[in-house]
Structure formats: structure tokens, C-alpha cells
């Protein structure tokens, strides 16, 4: 078992190395993508500043707090992009029939189709995002700073970020499974991205029933809002259990779905 994990880890690093080589070949593209992502981030940041320029509080959250919601969204979104970028290339892989070649290898297919295409551009962004979170968090708590408060808040924040990543992993595996089972849905991964986009702002801005729907039915709220709320100490016990329950059961469900999909696989281009 340990040997298998070691092997898949080695393969992960090898795939990552080759992805870097391929990424570096498209230099002009990298610059433009970087610029695009930077613009998008800055524009929305400016938008939030503008909003709070004339409105001191939105749904009970101050400017700094709203910024942390936005920055946390970016941290989680970047981390998931870094890890799971390869899922975007899965549909073409299946349509061309090259997925067969992945299935035939003595390694877990996820090593290639889930983790096999690290996004290096987002690695550049995630560190500044996280640093900004810390900066703005420090602005929301009273001075003098208590080491204990900061440590415990940030720890629980990171724990919830991990939870969000587990949830994102479950989403992505489900997308992979759907990519095999259905032939008509090309947009699944893009729909996922649009849905989590709702998490850029605190969930309180959405009216019911939308708010409950996106917290309980499709757990966007859990993924994007909960870490920030945990940071502010706004999450109570039941919600914490709920968050982890949802992510772990989601992961189990997605793996079962994946297994089912392999049985139903009919192969293409034959």
C-alpha cells in the first residue's frame, strides 16, 4: 500500500514537471493569462472598495470583512485550480479515445486525469492572496494582538480551507464521472465554476430560498463562506460537523459514482 502511494506520488511529480515544461513553451500565453487574472482580481477588488465607499456595512459585514470573504474565495479557487486543472482537459481526452490509454496503465487514473496538470500561474497568485488575508484579518481584530487568538483563528481557518479542498475534490471527481457517463454535457466543469462564483461575496446577500439552496443543496456556501466565518468565530458546533460531514460524504459519493462510470464506459473512436 505504501509502495503504491510512493509510486503515485513520484508519478505526480513527474507529470507536474512535464506540465511545467509544456506551460513554459507558451510564453506569450502565460503573460496574457497572468495579466487577465490580475485584472480580474484587481477590478473586483476595486469594485468592493467602491461599494463600501458609499455603504459602510453590507448585511452586517464591514469593508475589511467583505474583503476577506473575497480573498478567501480567491485562495480556495486558486488552490483548486492549481490541483485540478487537468479535469478541464478530460472531455477531449475521452472524445478522442485517448482515455483508453490511461485506463491501460498500471497506475491509478486519477494520477493523470485529476492531478496530472498543475496550474503554475495560479501558484504565483495564491501566496499574495493568502498574505492579504492575514493583513486584513489583523485589521479586524483589536490591537494589542493576542498570539493565542491569532493562532487559533488562523488554525481553524486553515482547517476549513482543507475541508473546502476535500469538497472541491469531490466536485471534480463527480465531473470526471459525468464526463464518462453522459455525452451531451460539455459544460459541467464551467457550471461548477459559475456556481462557486456565487461565493465571492458573503452568502447573506442572497435572498431565501437561494441562500439555503446554496448552503445545503449545492454546498457552495460551505466551500467558500464557512472558512471566513470560522475565522471570525461565527460558526457554531453543528455547522462544523455539517461542513465536514458534507465534504467527506461527498468524496465517498463521488468515488462510488466514478466506479459506476467505469463500468458503464463504452469507449469512443473505435
Amino acid at each position, binding site marked *: 500500500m505504501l509502495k503504491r502511494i510512493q509510486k503515485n506520488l513520484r508519478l505526480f511529480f513527474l507529470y507536474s514537471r512535464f506540465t511545467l515544461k509544456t506551460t513554459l513553451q507558451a510564453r506569450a500565453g502565460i503573460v496574457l493569462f497572468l495579466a487577465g487574472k490580475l485584472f480580474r482580481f484587481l477590478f473586483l477588488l476595486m469594485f468592493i472598495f467602491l461599494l463600501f465607499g458609499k455603504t459602510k456595512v453590507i448585511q452586517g459585514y464591514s469593508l475589511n470583512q467583505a474583503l476577506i470573504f473575497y480573498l478567501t474565495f480567491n485562495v480556495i479557487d486558486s488552490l483548486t485550480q492549481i490541483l485540478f486543472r487537468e479535469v478541464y482537459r478530460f472531455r477531449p481526452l475521452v472524445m478522442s479515445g485517448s482515455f483508453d490509454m490511461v485506463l*491501460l496503465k498500471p497506475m491509478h487514473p486519477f494520477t493523470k486525469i485529476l492531478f496530472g496538470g498543475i496550474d503554475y500561474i495560479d501558484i504565483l497568485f495564491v501566496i499574495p492572496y493568502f498574505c492579504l488575508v492575514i493583513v486584513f484579518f489583523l485589521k479586524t481584530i483589536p490591537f494589542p494582538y493576542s498570539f493565542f487568538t491569532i493562532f487559533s483563528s488562523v488554525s481553524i481557518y486553515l482547517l476549513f480551507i482543507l475541508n473546502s479542498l476535500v469538497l472541491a475534490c469531490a466536485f471534480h471527481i463527480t465531473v470526471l464521472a459525468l464526463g464518462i457517463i453522459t455525452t451531451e454535457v460539455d459544460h459541467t466543469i464551467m457550471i461548477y465554476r459559475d456556481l462557486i462564483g456565487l461565493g465571492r461575496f458573503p452568502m447573506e446577500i442572497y435572498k431565501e430560498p437561494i441562500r439555503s439552496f446554496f448552503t445545503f443543496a449545492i454546498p457552495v456556501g460551505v466551500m467558500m463562506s464557512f472558512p471566513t466565518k470560522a475565522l471570525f468565530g461565527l460558526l457554531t458546533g453543528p455547522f462544523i460537523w455539517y461542513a465536514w460531514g458534507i465534504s467527506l460524504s461527498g468524496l465517498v459519493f463521488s468515488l462510488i459514482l466514478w466506479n459506476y462510470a467505469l463500468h458503464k464506459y463504452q469507449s469512443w473512436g473505435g
Partner: protein
Amino acid sequence: MIKVTDLTKIYKTHIKQKNPFKDVFLRKYKDIVALDKISFEIGENESVGFIGPNGAGKTTTLKIISGILYPTSGFVSVEGFTPFEKKPQFLKQIAFVMGQRNQLIWDLPATDTFELQKEIYEISQQDYKKNVGELTEILNCADLITKPVKTLSLGERMKMELIAGLLHRPKIVFFDEPTIGLDIFSQETIRTFIKQFQEEFKATVILTSHYLEDVKRLSKRLIIINKGHIIYDGTLKKIIEQYSVEKRVTITLEKPANETELRAIDIPISYTFPKVVYKIKRSVLPEKIKAITQNLPFSDLSVEDETIEDIIKTFFKKNK
């Protein structure tokens, strides 16, 4: 050792309905029987060719034996393993090479893909160097392996695919249309390579192809599939003997002969001076040859089997 008993594979396709709501939410499915209770066994070091019309079930059979597809019913065992379980020890012993399908990393040199294969199949550094060396030597392409794959021609890419696919010295190799879309020189190169590979490394080779020349050169045993059933399982030699009824006789004339003289032997298929081609039944071949040598002013005479394409056509006609 491959053992297949009563293998059945049914595909589900959905029938498009006129009503768009029904089409999405209340789908109707149609069952397509791709394989209907087929059975066969393949032993060590055999070379088998699967042929049949498009949609007959050849590729489906190969994909089930290699573990890609899940059989609807029946029993499949390869080297004691159940293919669909895709156990690593099983996968390390097989290879699947598909024509026109690639697993090479497009933007990088082939050596990078080879390195990946080395890691995936857990090949030792020593074996890796040896295998790469041997394979590049047989295929005469040592200078190509460091060039980005996207810059290579189709034939060159196929060579890289072969090396990548066979680097781990598999016991069983599946070739699915390996020469499709290649020019005749590349086809010849691939055929020679497969023959050499099988002889040197003693692998079981299972091949599907629409080019019967592939099968003729590379397989001793022939399995013909049509509409999900095996309609022939035996040696290539036997089918030629059984179904080859006529032989092609080509004569090169020294000087023009008139039509009546030619027709006295038989009605020629083609006559463009100096070549005359006859199709003569085997049963009457000796007397016809005698007649030709006695009556026609020829400088050269050759007798050939029917092309394998014609033989298979006759086979299908007789086994409707």
C-alpha cells in the same frame, strides 16, 4: 494464456425522440449486441489476426480482453487475471497499440514520454536503457526521440508510439489497426517491426486490421468476426486452401496474339499487350497451363494465389 467463454457485450445507445422534454428526462434506450456469446482461446506466443467488417466487434473484443470495457456477461481470463479489475501485475504484462491514437505528450520530445512509461511500469534504469536502445535500433530512429513529437511526421510518430508502448517488454500485445492511414513505406516498416518484435521477444500478438496484407504477413491464425459472432477460427493457410478457388495466371507475350487464340484458353480478365491475365480454376489449372505453353507465344508466365481480399470476399459470400 487467454481464455474467453460465452463473452457477450451489449451497448446501450439512446434513441433521439422528437419531444425535447422527453428526450432529456424520459430517455429511451436501444440495446446493440456487439458481441454474442463468443468463445476462443489463445496460447503463449501465438500470433492471431482478427478481421471483419466495420462494427463487427473486433475492437470491442480487444478492449474487453485488455480490461478497458466491462463485459455484459461471460468469462474472460488473461494469464489468470480478470482483465476489468485492471490489477497492476496484469497491466504490466500487456500493451495496447492503437493506430492513429497517441499517448505521447504532444509538445515534448518522445524521451519524456518514455521516462513516464519507465516510472509507470517500474522498469529498472538498466532495462530501460537497454530496451530503448534495442527498439530504436530496430526502428532506426535514434535521432528522432529527442525532437518534440508535434514536429514529427505521422510515420515517425507511429514509431515513437511503438517504442513507448513496448518499452516494458509485454507478454501480450494488442495491435488495433496499427498501419491505418500510413503511406506504404511506413506500413512496411511497421509490419517488419511487428514481425521482428514477435520473433525476438516471444510475445503473443493479437492484431486487428482492415489491411489483409497485415494479417497475411503477421498472423498464423485468423479469427473472423461478423455481427458479433465468430464465423471462422483457424489457420490462414486453411482458409486460403478452402476458399481460394481460382489462381491468377499472368502471361507476357512476345508478339501480339489475336483474340480467338486467347479466348481458346479462357476468357481473359485483361489484355493490354504484352500482358494477359487469366483467372483459372485450380481443378483445370494443369491442362490450361499446358494449352498456354503449346499455343501462345509467351516469354514469361506467372501463377499467383488470389489476393487475400478476394478470398475473404468469397468466404463472406459463401457464409451469408
